[in-house]
Each structure stands twice: as structure tokens, then as C-alpha cells.
């Protein structure tokens, strides 16, 4: 190519790259600069008193559940318990925004959300007591198994929501993940698939400040975790995770959006893990009392109770009733958990495949023979 060939070279302005245009307007995707709050604001007026009281009762029950489960670890009745004390507003709201046909995708810390959704409180602890991994039928309850490998449940939620939409079913999936879990590649891939497919799924990040011992500052440099949404082309919402009505409202809006075909939303709930990571963890190694104390001041149960009593929506009798209901639940749970689980060794082999392979049948036979010999040895 030479100069001669180029028409009007001096006045030439290059064509812009033909394909480029923003795919979505970024502005509406950005979260508010502050976590959204309801308690202590006029927004409380917009809530039905029944919902507020229901939230309160569930928070009280949830707090009790956490305490009871932690106590069960001390009695050796649970192998481990990752408590959600301090995060009950997220747990309760996540369960209550769901329609019956919707799906919940919990992590190991979200037993409580499963219980609030209706799962038997003892069944929800099956995994954590050292019994078989899922103590309930996920399809019956539309609760995926409590997931341990971090963020791996998120693509499942996307796939399920996408499948439901393809089938024409009105189903939304709500997937829970921690602040630490947002660093995993699966978080990224799941959110991207969800946005590209416009899948009816809502992601709730419970930012409780820590991934075991690692504080948020070592986990991310982002303005907030909700800001990650913009990179996928979905809206990001930031909410006070201890403000139960606020979480309920923000999640509810995201669910509604997903339900009407508006695609996924990323919600970051700012909260705090009051207990150690699990009963086996020693939180004093990595954080001080003052921080914990500051968060205790912003306790989800307490701030809702204050608001409701202050507004005359809840009286002493109501509070007592909630506490009693929680106590009864704890008593039933203790009783259930004090019974030894009965596990059948043969079950090791029955569900690896639809039908055991010849090799597994032989191994089951071997184990049966061993156990029979043991019994024989014992009787002799």
C-alpha cells in the first residue's frame, strides 16, 4: 500500500472498531455506596407486621439452634458445627424469600437456612454428626446438599435454574456462599454462566469478615464484593446482613427480578461471624475482643427486637412466646440427637452406582463375612 492509494489521507479519521458497544449500561449494575438498611429508617413502615414478627421469631429460634448445635459438639454428638451465630438474619431471610418450588443451595454454614426452609432440625445435622452426607432428599425439599468444597455449589444452582427455565418452570435458585468463597474460580464461572444464560438465580454472599482466620482485606481489594457483579453484567446489591427486613427485601427484589426473566443478581450481605469458624477453631488467634464486641452491638436479633418493641409491634408476651418455641425446638433436637444413629455397613456399597459393580458386590460380601466373624468371635 502506498500513499497514492490512500484517498484523503490528511483528513482521515479511523473508523471506530465496528463491533464495539457496551453490552449493558454499567450504571444500574453498581451497588449503592452503603449497605441498604431498613431498621431505624422509615422503610420499616412498608413491611407487614406479620412478616416482621415472623422474622423475629425465626431469628430467636435460629440463635437457639446455633447454641444447641454448638453444645452438641461439646457432648460429642456432632463431629463439627460451623455456627451461623450473628448471621441469622441472612439465614432466615434467605429461607423465607423462597417459594415452595424454589431451590436453596446452601454451604456447610447454612444448616439454619435449611431448617428455616422446613427441613427437620436433626436431619439437617446428619452430615455434621458424622452420618451419611445428606440426611434428606434434596428433591423433596428443594434444598441441595450442604456443600463443603467452596463455591462449587454455585454452578449447580445456575445449571438447575437454567434447566428449570428451559422446561418452562417458574423456579428460582438461591445460592449461598461466603466472602472467602468469592475468590474461587467456580464463583467466577458460575456468575458468568448465569449472566450469559440470564438464568433465574440469585447469589447471596454472606460476608462475615473472615474465611477461617483470613480477614476480608487479605481476600479482596474490591470496593465491595457486590461490585463484582458489574464484571458479569448483573446488578450488585449491598445490604446490611444483620438487618433481617433489609436482607429479606433485597433478596425478595432479586428473586422477583429473576422470576420475571430479568436474570441473576449478586447480593452481598455485610455481617459477622460471632463464633469461631467451627467448634474446632480458636478465633482468639486471629481477632480481638473489641471487634467482636462492636458487632455484638449490632446483633441481628437485638436490633430487630428493639425496633419492633419500640414500634409496639412486639410485646413481652410475643418475645416470651418466641423464646419458648425456640426452647422447645432445642429440646426436641437434643432428644433426637441423643439417640445413636444406626448405620448399616452394607450401605457403603449400595449407592456408589445405580447397581453395584461385580467388584463392589464382592467387597460387600467380604465385609459381611468379616463382621460375621467378629460377631462369632465376640459370642465365643
Amino acid at each position, binding site marked *: 500500500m502506498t500513499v497514492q492509494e490512500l484517498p484523503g489521507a490528511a483528513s482521515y479519521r479511523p473508523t471506530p472498531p465496528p463491533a464495539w458497544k457496551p453490552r449493558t449500561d454499567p450504571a444500574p449494575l453498581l451497588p449503592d455506596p452503603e449497605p441498604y438498611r431498613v431498621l431505624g429508617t422509615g422503610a420499616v413502615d412498608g413491611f407487614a407486621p406479620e412478616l416482621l414478627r415472623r422474622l423475629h421469631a425465626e431469628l430467636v429460634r435460629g440463635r437457639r439452634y446455633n447454641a444447641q448445635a454448638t453444645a452438641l459438639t461439646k457432648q460429642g454428638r456432632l463431629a463439627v458445627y460451623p455456627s451461623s451465630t450473628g448471621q441469622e438474619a441472612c439465614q432466615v431471610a434467605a429461607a423465607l424469600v423462597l417459594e415452595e418450588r424454589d431451590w436453596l443451595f446452601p454451604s456447610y454454614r447454612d444448616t439454619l437456612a435449611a431448617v428455616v426452609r422446613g427441613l427437620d432440625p436433626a436431619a439437617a445435622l446428619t452430615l455434621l454428626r458424622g452420618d451419611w452426607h445428606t440426611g434428606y432428599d434434596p428433591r423433596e425439599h428443594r434444598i441441595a446438599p450442604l456443600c463443603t*468444597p467452596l463455591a462449587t455449589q454455585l454452578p449447580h444452582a445456575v*445449571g438447575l435454574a437454567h434447566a428449570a427455565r428451559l422446561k418452562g418452570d417458574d423456579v428460582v435458585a438461591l445460592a449461598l456462599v461466603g466472602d472467602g468463597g468469592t475468590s474461587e474460580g467456580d464463583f467466577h464461572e458460575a456468575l458468568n454462566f448465569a449472566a450469559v444464560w440470564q438464568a433465574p438465580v440469585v447469589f447471596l454472599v454472606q460476608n462475615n469478615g473472615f474465611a477461617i482466620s483470613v480477614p476480608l482485606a487479605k481476600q479482596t481489594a474490591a470496593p465491595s464484593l457486590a461490585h463484582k457483579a458489574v464484571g458479569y453484567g448483573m446488578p450488585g446489591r449491598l445490604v446490611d446482613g444483620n438487618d433481617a427486613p433489609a436482607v429479606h427485601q433485597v433478596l425478595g427484589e432479586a428473586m422477583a427480578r429473576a422470576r420475571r426473566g430479568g436474570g441473576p443478581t449478586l447480593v452481598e450481605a455485610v455481617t459477622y461471624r460471632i463464633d469461631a469458624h467451627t467448634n474446632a477453631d480458636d478465633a482468639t488467634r486471629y481477632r480481638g475482643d473489641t471487634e467482636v464486641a462492636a458487632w455484638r452491638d449490632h446483633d441481628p436479633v437485638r436490633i430487630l427486637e428493639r425496633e419492633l418493641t419500640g414500634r409496639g409491634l412486639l410485646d413481652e408476651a410475643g418475645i416470651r412466646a418466641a423464646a419458648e418455641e425456640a426452647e422447645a425446638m432445642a429440646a426436641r433436637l437434643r432428644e433426637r440427637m441423643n439417640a445413636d444413629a444406626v448405620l448399616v455397613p452394607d450401605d457403603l456399597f449400595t*449407592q*456408589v452406582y445405580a447397581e453395584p*459393580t461385580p467388584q463392589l458386590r464382592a467387597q460387600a460380601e467380604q465385609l459381611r463375612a468379616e463382621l460375621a466373624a467378629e460377631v462369632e468371635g465376640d459370642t465365643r
Partner: protein
Amino acid sequence: MSGATSRATGGTTATAVKPDRAARPATMAQALQRAMRDAMAEDPAVHVLGEDVGTLGGVFRVTDGLAKEFGEDRCTDTPLAEAGILGTAVGMAMYGLRPVVEMQFDAFAYPAFEQLISHVSRMRNRTRGAMPLPLVVRVPYGGGIGGVEHHSDSSEAYYMATPGLHVVTPATVEDAYGLLRAAIASDDPVVFLEPKRLYWSKSDWSPEAPAAVEPIGRAVVRRTGRSATLITYGPSVPVCLEAAEAARAEGWELEVVDLRSLVPFDDETVCASVRRTGRAVVVHESTGFGGPGGEIAARITEQCFHHLEAPVLRVAGFDIPYPPPMLERHHLPGVDRVLDAVARLQWEAEN
């Protein structure tokens, strides 16, 4: 395996196709495509997803035409993320679909290992059968196609070491169809290994009169012989058949067993053959150390020790990362190496 065949029978193809039962040359790639096509036509729950599987029809064209026939919702070009592909497929299967996932190449399945090991292989067991995952992961594997790095791995050892998966690999055009139909029909997750260098291998086959769907877990004797047994699968089956032909000149009648299914493993067929011949060589492309051959040789020895005239030998790829195209012929187990191994089966003892 009743589960394996439960869905493959019954039902008619949604689109009317002129019946033409005459066998004519077809490639393995075509048979695989046809298996997916027929499964999709029979069962609306079958969905295909992966990188470039839609508009392009896959880099090996194995999904050619599926998006056109069934729409992009049934055959979907996904974003480029293998863990995401398999992870969303898990969710789809949780909702009752039967996803068929394509990994573009063996080495590009590695990002999906966590989903495969921690979820795909365990969901049924974890939920005590409440939530089986009927999904297929198709993985083109193996070398011999002149592929640059990461395009020729034989990764079957990883899958075999993961309980809860079926691991299947065809060596013929017929089996490609039959086994893939069986894999899609299975209520268990199946890793379906497709020997890349056999994609364009041809044989006479009629898409309208395909063989009955194979149950998963049965090996087949491809050639009978009394001198020794060659135990092999996938890309090494043609090598062993050629070696068996060449061995006749040396006076050996070699039996060739095509495993077809690495999991479940067909001890019965394999051991019956080895008990007959008394000698065995396991042949595969995968590295020797830690590869499938160790398991196979060990279990044969356990079960047939007193029938063995010689130790079970292995002919495998060297214990090295897959080499560059210019050197791959030195790495791949060929006819000569198989015959060398046969020669080392302690024939003197007999004479």
C-alpha cells in the same frame, strides 16, 4: 446394569428419517454424532453442551448439526470454562435433565476435575440414591494426531481412580454408537473417552440399523487365539489387532480383548481369556507407571496366578509428559513393541 439400558429402549425418533438399513462406510465421529442425535430425538431431557459444540459442531465435528436440528437450547455453546460447564451440567442433571458435556481435549478437562471428583462421582452416594447424576462427559483423548502440547494426553488413570464414575471407551464405529447410547441412557455419570486418532477410522455401518445398545461393563474378544492374550482398549485396539496378525508369522496365535469399559471392569471375560492362554500383555498409550495397566495386570495376577506361565507384561507409553509431535512415534506403543513383549513371555519354559 439395568440402569444403563433403562432409557435407551422404547421411544421412536422424533424426526422421520428414511429407513435405510444398508451398511456403508461411516467414521467413528459420525457414529458418535448419530448416537447423540438419536438420543436427543428420543428423549427431550438429553442436552449437549460445551465449547464450540453448537454453531461449529465441535472442533472434531462430532456434534455437527445438533444445534441446527434441536436448537441452541438443546446443543449449547457455553462460555469458555470447563469447571463451569461440568458444574452447570451437574445442576441440570439435578433438575432431571441428561446433559452430555464435551471437553474439547483431554488436557482441557483438568480444570473440571474438582467438579468431577467432588460432585459428579459422589452425588448419588452422598444423597443415598435420591439424586443420581445421569450425565456423560465426553473426552477426546490420546495421541497420534500430531497435536501440539496438551492435545494428546491419555488421562484415563485419573478417572479410573475415582469411584462413582463409569469409564468407557470405544474402539470401533459400532461400539462408538452403542456405547455412547448406553452412556447417555445410564443413570450413572459416565466418562466417555473418545480415541482421537480413531475419529476418522471407518467401517461399514448403518445408522438405521445400529447394533443393540451395549450394556456398559462388558469386554469383547476381538480376535481369538491360544498363545497369549493382548488386553487393550480404545486407540490401541487396532495396534493389537495388527500385532496379532503379524504374530502369526512367528507362530503365535494371539487373542485380543477390547475392554471397552475400564469401570466397571469385566474380570470375567479378561480372566477367562488369560486362563485359556496362560500369558498376557496389557497394551495402552497412557504412561506405564501409575497408568491403567498396573491395575489390570495386578487383578489378572490375583485371579489367575496359577494359570500364568509368565508375568503379565505391560506395553505402555513411557513415564514422561506426552512428547511433541516430532517425537511421538517413539512414545506410542506400536506393533513392534507389542511383539517384543510377547516374545518376552518366557516361551522357553514351555519348550
